């Protein structure tokens, strides 16, 4: 059974009578996470790709304009109060900024005791304390060094790990992490990612890792969705997508990663780069592939209609006419086949 599923979801912001100022943030995306098979799935893209909007849709914070989000086969918008509470417990979130989520006037204990109280996780104070300490340890923190402190007395990495601990308290099935390490230092980044991977390994919790950083996405996830201006341009196993990218946009992204190795220089996708620089500010047309204006391989048909996904491997599909000899596949089918 699919634990969490996005079925052809679109989110349009703004309205305006003549459709002016309409912004399609998420444009027909499908995604699936299997309940029986815990996985780490990366959603990667740059600013404006719609990755955070997709995360908010998956969390039920905002409603899709069309399409639906399903939790265990049930549409979020049709859930009753009880079901919704269960959803809120099973699907947890960790956000980018470990500074913003805390009230500076309260001790950090508050972010941990609130869910215990709201979801009645413990019968007594002692039990609550035990539960909190246990979840802190799972997140790699020492309770005695963490509890009773104010947010400013802790480092960014500690604060972020408290958010991991808070998510763990509820024993969720899945955690959505939106850029959980983009604001912490390199030495702590590794520690936090390691604790997220442990959740999957040891507790069977699935993770949706939303990031702009393809290196860490490669390190921790099995499957990856590459987003460009609201659409999935390439999806599949990280081995295929990152090691052998097929979509011109993915190739540009991968070759632009500054690798921490002076012997592996910035890739040589020179043609792509030249194109990109002249058109990066220009908007795409209303029809066709959104990347067409920046694409060095652009063909006439790219401007006519947006390409469907083509299944170029068993575990990868690319939305690009360069691969039209492969069999087309719907986003939903591809998502389900990846989720298994």
């Amino acid at each position: 059974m699919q634990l969490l599923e996005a079925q052809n979801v679109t989110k349009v912001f703004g309205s305006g009578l003549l459709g002016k100022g309409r912004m399609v943030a998420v444009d027909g995306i499908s995604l699936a996470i299997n309940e029986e098979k815990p996985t780490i799935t990366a959603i990667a893209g740059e600013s404006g790709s719609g990755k955070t909007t997709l995360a908010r849709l998956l969390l039920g914070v905002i409603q899709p304009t069309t399409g639906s989000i399903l939790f265990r086969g049930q549409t979020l918008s049709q859930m009753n109060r009880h079901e919704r509470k269960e959803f809120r417990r099973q699907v947890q979130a960790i956000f980018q900024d470990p500074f913003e989520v805390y009230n500076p006037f309260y001790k950090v204990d508050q972010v941990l005791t609130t869910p215990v109280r709201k979801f009645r996780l413990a019968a007594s104070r002692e039990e609550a304390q035990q539960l909190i300490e246990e979840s802190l340890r799972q997140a790699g923190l020492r309770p005695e060094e963490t509890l009773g402190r104010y947010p400013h007395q802790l480092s960014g990495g500690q604060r972020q790990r408290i958010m991991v601990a808070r998510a763990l308290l509820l024993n969720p099935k899945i955690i959505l992490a939106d850029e959980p390490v983009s604001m912490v230092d390199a030495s702590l980044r590794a520690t936090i990612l390691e604790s997220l991977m442990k959740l999957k390994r040891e507790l069977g919790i699935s993770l949706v890792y939303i990031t702009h950083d393809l290196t860490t996405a490669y390190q921790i996830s099995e499957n990856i969705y590459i987003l460009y201006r609201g659409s999935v341009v390439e999806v599949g196993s990280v081995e295929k997508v990152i090691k052998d990218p097929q979509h011109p946009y993915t190739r540009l992204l991968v070759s632009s990663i500054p690798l921490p190795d002076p012997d592996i220089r910035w890739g040589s996708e020179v043609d792509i780069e030249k194109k990109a620089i002249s058109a990066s500010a220009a908007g795409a047309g209303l029809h066709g592939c959104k990347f067409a204006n920046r694409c060095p391989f652009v063909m006439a048909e790219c401007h006519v209609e947006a390409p469907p996904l083509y299944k170029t491997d068993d575990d990868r599909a690319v939305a690009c006419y360069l691969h039209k000899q492969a069999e087309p596949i719907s986003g939903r089918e591809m998502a389900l086949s990846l989720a298994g």
Partner: protein
Amino acid sequence: MTITAQTHVVNGKSIPAPEKVLEVKNLRVSYQTPRGPVRAVSGVSFFLTAGEKFGLVGESGSGKTTTALSLMRLIQAPAVIEGGEVLLGGKNLLALSEEEMREARSADIALIPQGAMNSLNPMMKVGEQLRDTVRAHINTESRSALGARILEVLDSVDLRSDVMEAYPHELSGGMKQRVCIAMGILLSPKVIIADEPTSALDVVVQRQVMETLGRVQQALGAAVLLVGHDMGLMAQFVDRVGVMYGGKLVEIGPVRDIFKEPLHPYTQLLIGSLPNLRTKEIFKGIPGLTPSLLTPPPGCMFHPRCPKALPHCAVEIPDLQEIRPGRWVSCHLYNGSNS
């Protein structure tokens, strides 16, 4: 502290040291707080040679930005420069009068600040802001010469001349960052300090902006001090790296040596914590926390987290020593290895 470079190592070969354009000697900066002074920078020494790209890396709180801003004398109370020298073309910038320093900024040493794109004035057209920068320094320049110089600089950062008529909000992040680079190089400075110049940009744009910066730097023959925490960017861009920890430089060396054969245990752990695309192995963080600069540990700042710490490390502060030509390290493990 012994900074005596007679030789400079390039691709493993020793060649006579090029001219030092900027030399920082024993810079000390602290923040005055009610609980006592916080030593943000305690005794930092390094130099930049002409045309070189030097990276100053460190995690938050390591003192890298404070160091960069102090070179320009742009830090404000409660921060105080307590001592040291910043030598640029024979002048000690720290000893200049406020007016002399104002003249040196932009003309001799320019800053592309952190989040530079937000440093543009939102109410003023880009062209006007560029003209202001020049006017503040050169009053005899004719209008046409001024305009020509601005166009030349815009062209060198791959911007079309029509951005002159644009307000900052009409430009993309990458374009704003290019405007800031243009502003930085207008007066052909000898040294460009770039403090995390691309931290808010996407990777594709980041790469384009950094390549532009590299190109204009080369054309000018200026030295660049790139300040940041992104080791990947350092590996791709700079020639030499200085690693900061707890307000001190712990290691300086050519970029390849720093990544392939780091000497200081902190650098070793830092390099080891970086993810790459070759292996999917579990990477390791550095255990423990960065030191409090208000109550720093005795001896070496890193000893409480150091897996190789000796008893001696908790007692004596190690000096930054050149243990091999071009390689400086501040660690007791290497005591006696310099001949």
